[in-house]
């Protein structure tokens, strides 16, 4: 659309290169989403967002900037959006999930860096993603070594503030994270010129909690024996949650959930009775990474849960809304975020407990532990994940993959064999 091109040009994007991404998106969306049958009508909102993913939301962010607002780009579920929104700024996710951006990242990063980091850096340096162009400041964090070095490279091109995430979960670590959140508040206040007051923070805590509650309601629907929505559709909703206006996202997701709950009451399912229920665990699936969900759901199974950053880690548990001072609120935020179980922590037994709990809650028949290539932390933790699941008698398939299409046939063979094994 002409308006988009004008905006992209003004953002300094490489239009010729970006056009190559525009060229492949329609077919992928058609294959992965529009080929599905009996989709909920409420998916129309998310279909609209994806159809113009580099147009609609970016234009809203630009409009806010034109009124003096600031946009902060984030890469991780540990960065508390509450603080950013409390300063009348906007937080938007920046994780890259496309192979298209990877070569740009490889120009400055070692090849044996995970594709998520390479794609994120490539999207910025190649100027092929409007979100990366729009963000006034990036908020990084120390969740892995690859990211730590990536922030140094990106900071030569865009302002970056890095939050130092503790790697253990003792009381002093939660306190240290609260101090990091306070430091973020100071940075955000200075950058925006807006004070984060207790009233503003209370509002934004509620705003983000409401988004989490909408996602929790969506996932609750997926626990039902009749599956009212495909895993692929649920995944794209989780992915969009990182970018969308939080209030509108919660409203549209709750509207969808009204429909899903009606489907459940009427016994409507997107899959035939007896379809094997799969949970995915592991590294995040940033938009537009839909490969594994599509493969699983076109191999005779259905994905009912993701124990991932683009899944339960993003929305489980809420920030306590009863605190009255900024200091108390920040402690409550730190408490909630330090309850997320990422493989960057040691020890991380709580993540194994989460996986076993979720397997029971979602009544899964099997688990696929999927990790991005070169993500050493999750790959290593896979040893404990797979051992614990075997002890629990839950079938598990371990997969390492990236954003390329080259392993798709091999993945299909492995996933089909796994599903066949579950069926026998």
């Amino acid at each position: 659309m002409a308006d988009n091109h004008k905006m992209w040009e003004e953002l300094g994007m490489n239009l010729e290169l970006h056009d190559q991404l525009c060229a492949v998106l329609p077919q992928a969306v058609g294959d992965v989403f529009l080929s599905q049958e009996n989709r909920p009508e409420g998916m129309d909102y998310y279909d609209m967002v994806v159809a113009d993913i580099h147009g609609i939301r970016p234009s809203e962010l630009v409009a806010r900037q034109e009124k003096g607002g600031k946009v902060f780009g984030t890469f991780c579920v540990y960065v508390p959006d509450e603080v950013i929104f409390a300063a009348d700024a906007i937080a938007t996710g920046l994780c890259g999930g496309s192979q298209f951006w990877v070569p740009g990242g490889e120009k400055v990063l070692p090849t044996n860096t995970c594709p998520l980091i390479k794609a994120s850096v490539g999207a910025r340096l190649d100027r092929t993603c409007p979100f990366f162009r729009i963000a006034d400041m990036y908020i990084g964090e120390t969740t892995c070594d690859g990211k730590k070095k990536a922030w140094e490279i990106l900071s030569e091109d865009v302002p970056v503030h890095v939050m130092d995430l503790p790697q253990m979960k003792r009381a002093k670590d939660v306190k240290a994270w609260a101090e990091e959140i306070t430091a973020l508040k100071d940075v955000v206040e200075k950058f925006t010129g807006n004070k984060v007051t207790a009233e503003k923070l209370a509002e934004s805590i509620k705003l983000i909690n409401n988004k989490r509650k909408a996602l929790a309601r969506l996932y609750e629907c997926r626990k039902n024996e009749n599956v009212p929505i495909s895993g692929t559709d649920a995944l794209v909703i989780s992915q969009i949650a990182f970018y969308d206006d939080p209030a509108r996202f919660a409203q549209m997701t709750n509207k969808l959930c009204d429909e899903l709950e009606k489907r459940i009451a009427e016994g409507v399912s997107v899959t035939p009775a007896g379809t094997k229920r799969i949970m995915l665990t592991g590294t995040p699936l940033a938009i537009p990474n839909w490969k594994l969900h599509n493969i699983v759901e076109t191999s005779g199974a259905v994905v009912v849960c993701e124990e991932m950053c683009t899944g339960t880690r993003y929305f489980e548990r809420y920030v306590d809304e009863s605190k009255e001072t900024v200091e108390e609120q920040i402690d409550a935020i730190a408490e909630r975020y330090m309850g997320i179980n990422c493989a960057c922590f040691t020890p991380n037994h709580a993540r194994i407990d989460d996986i076993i709990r979720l397997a029971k809650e979602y009544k899964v028949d099997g688990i696929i532990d999927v990790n991005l290539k070169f993500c050493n932390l999750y790959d290593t933790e896979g040893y404990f994940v797979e051992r614990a699941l075997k002890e629990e008698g839950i079938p598990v398939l371990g997969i390492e993959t990236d954003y390329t299409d080259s392993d798709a046939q091999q993945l299909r063979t492995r996933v089909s064999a796994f599903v066949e094994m579950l069926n026998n």
Partner: protein
Amino acid sequence: MTEIQHYILFPNHDNAMRLYRELRKLGVRAVIAPTPRSASKCCGVSLMVEKDDLEKIRETAAEKEIEILKIAEVEKDFNPHRDRYC
């Protein structure tokens, strides 16, 4: 035999969503989709519709003053096993 899919193209997503809502009120089936590359080089929202509904759709757009860029005929080619992601 090749199946043809009809797409309504718009100058912006506001027009697309306005028509989509009007069509839903009338019970006319429409699916929100990215504009197929063969129909236009622009990224953006279009509506996938049935051929039999085209006249009704044109009438509705005219009545509600919703701007349509064009109606494109594209070979229907959805293949979830293609494994070409982006």
